């Protein structure tokens, strides 16, 4: 069984026909060609698949594409503005908040949502927010530093 759904992804509207079993992640990656979001654990734990659905972080690997019908999705590809990296992305580059990069799209999407909600988070708030974004390479220290740097940079 297939359904035609309408997704607004990074501001652009798409009508896509998907099998009902298609996950939102697979729809983004394979039907829309947005391969920035990754599948890691496949059970919603690791955060590599994190996207924003109507501004809220979700695990797209355990969300069906049909759940997002009529809604707005933000992926890592939608963070940069006019060819310039989002301050969070730039901070990850400057502070070394990534290594292999496979968790990085999920990390920066979550970090952007964090700074939108809490512009100057404490380390405790950062750790609570980012609990669900696993990283195997960095040990997290430079992710915390990157988020701190992004917060400082964005302060008016």
């Amino acid at each position: 069984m297939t359904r035609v759904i309408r997704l607004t992804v990074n501001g652009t509207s798409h009508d896509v026909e998907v099998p009902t079993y298609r996950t939102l992640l697979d729809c983004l990656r394979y039907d829309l060609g947005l391969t920035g979001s990754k599948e890691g654990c496949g059970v919603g734990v690791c955060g590599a698949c994190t996207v924003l659905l109507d501004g809220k972080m979700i695990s797209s690997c355990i969300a069906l594409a049909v759940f997002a019908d009529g809604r707005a999705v933000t992926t890592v590809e939608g963070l940069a503005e006019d060819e310039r990296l989002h301050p969070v992305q730039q901070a990850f580059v400057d502070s070394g908040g990534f290594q292999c990069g496979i968790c990085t799209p999920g990390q920066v999407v979550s970090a952007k949502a964090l700074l939108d909600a809490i512009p100057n988070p404490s380390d405790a708030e950062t750790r609570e927010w980012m609990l669900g974004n696993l990283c195997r390479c960095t040990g997290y220290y430079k992710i915390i530093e990157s988020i701190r740097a992004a917060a400082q940079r964005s302060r008016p």
Partner: protein
Amino acid sequence: MAHRVVGKPIGRLDGIEKVSGEARYSGDVTLPGLVWGKTLRSPLPHARILRIDTSRAKALAGVLAVLTARDLPNILVGRRMFDMPLLARDRVRFIGERVAAVAALDPDIAEEALALIDVEYEDLPAVFDPVEAIKDGAPILHDDPGAYEGAPPERPHPNVQSVLRFKLGDVEAGFREADRVFEHTFRTQLAHQGYLEPHAGVVAIDEDGRVQVWASNKMPFRLKELLSLALQLPPAQIRVNLTPIGGDFGGKGSVMDLPLAYHLARATGRPVKMIMRYTEELMAGNPRHPAVITLRTGVDKDGRIVARRVRALFNSGAYAAFKPAPSVNLGGAGMGAGVYRIPHLLIESFCVYSNNIPCGHARSPGEPQMVFAGESHMDMIARELALDPAELRRRNLLRDGDVLANGHHLEHVRAGDTLEAALKASNWSEPKGPWIGRGAAMTHRHIGVGFTNARVRLETDGTVTLSVALPDTGTGAHLVLRQVVAEVLGLPLDEVEIEVVTTDDFTTDSGVGGSRVTHTGGRAAYHAAEKLREQIGAEAARLGAPATSLAAIAQAAAREGRTLEATHFYDAKAHGSVTSFTAQVAEVSVDPQTGQVTVRRFTTAHDVGTIINPIGHQGQIEGGFVQGLGYALMEEVKTEDGRISTLSLGDVKLPTIQDIPPLTTVILEDPVGPGPFNAKAIGEGSISAVAPAIANAVADACGARILDLPITAEKVYFALRAKAKAQAPSVKERQS
């Protein structure tokens, strides 16, 4: 010595594509007409295959091909010892072994098809524990393992894959000289490398009949060779297109599912993508070997080690295929000697067949197991001798001029300095509150060796392109190589670009792993840059204009049909005189009511060579430490009777951002390494001593000595209870 680019705290400038989502990993590659492959796996640990019926699967709409062993040549694969079939032919040897492969229009249809394949099995007796597997009468997994290509000759039991020994002096004589002898046995768990990108690959046969491969594999030339053998094709017919890799940690060096993808591509006439689900990684990836390790150490009355005998059983699972070392064993077994001068030493490491998941290499192969055992053992000895564990170590540390069992004559030994640095930074001797403890542990790691080709080319815009066929596994090595070239040529970093090429563009490269890329890739890039610098100098002289820009020089040469370009092949021989020491101290608190262990802080001290990229270097230390932390306290792929029960990454318990303690890093930088600008290596330095540092701290905090990993609250709780019971006066005593 001050450099312009080397050693500067620049960020990870190689990461723009990663933070923006543009980086294309193997699973992101797409081609017209691409279809999806999936494998059916054995539900039994040891069984004969009586019958496979694929008719229902083939009839499912959207299924394009279904293959069993009957459809494939009778080929065995491996990395050094070739004992594993592409698909099980008439026998399965572990739960998770590949039995059939399907290609379909999408991965969901492919998985539905798997459920429609009917297989009839007949159980065979199985064995799971490595101690049991080498007893007389144990079920035998392979009828004639010695006949496999690459099989080492020594086989004391048919279930032994390989034996590796390290020997110095005469260990029995040594024990006779000893004043006291101690023996302890330790166990470590099955642990996955935990890379967040499961194995992924795309195989396409192009119009010229060449096999195009994109794979999460960190040694593309070796992959090309292994595929050539597995597919029975000349190597020139295969091209490996490099992609960034989402974490390797030793686990991505085999052909994995790629031969099946090839056969599915042949059967369907379409490109095939295969991505393992994480459940499949946990059932059939190639995780870190579990181990049973017994150490027996004899010391004199001053606590100096006179003799040590180590017997390690590594539970290798059903196949030896995933081990790449010529010994088909784990080189880390040599760390049974630790960081100590041991005149009489015998280490025997056995890799054993059992009906479990076949294991492979993981970060510092064999070492976290061995160092957990060895460094826990040292603390237990110190306690028996009533010596401060730091002092026992001091009395035995390696020194300049010492010779290791592998023949290396060590120079520039900073074992003592590194230990003292860790002790100082961790406030080792400060008073502690109740239920708080500190523990130390040390290890050392040689600099990795291998061979790499690097080419540098001066472009007509005056920038330089460095070409390598080394994949990006995340360590930051590509940035390091750019820095090396920029330093040699006197250029700003952003005028040096890196180009990752394919296996068509160079003859060979040993790839990533073993903490070797800064050394081998770095030296190749360094010498190639030196050659280019000479060419540029010669060219400038010819032009007669000394201050000419690089762009002008390149353009002048181009007008004559020449490109200024230099290639260097560097084959790093073992640098037998230099190693790197790590000393770590864990400070923990133990909750006596629950046994829960909290790491209050952790100190890691490293004796390193010149640091080329400080942020990248520190990132390796931090990442390795947290992997060691997970290994020590929480990670386990749980298996019982060959059946893995932790089938989701959520069950394995990788550390989260809330699980990390404050970390203090102490660096002792000594420019004596064989790498460019005297660099050493760091990738595998920080992982191996973490678990024993924590185990020793737990013992210090509460007296509970945990001999098997991971150190869970439950184990500490019951150890404390047993201790309390042992110390409580007996009823009879109380009554009298």
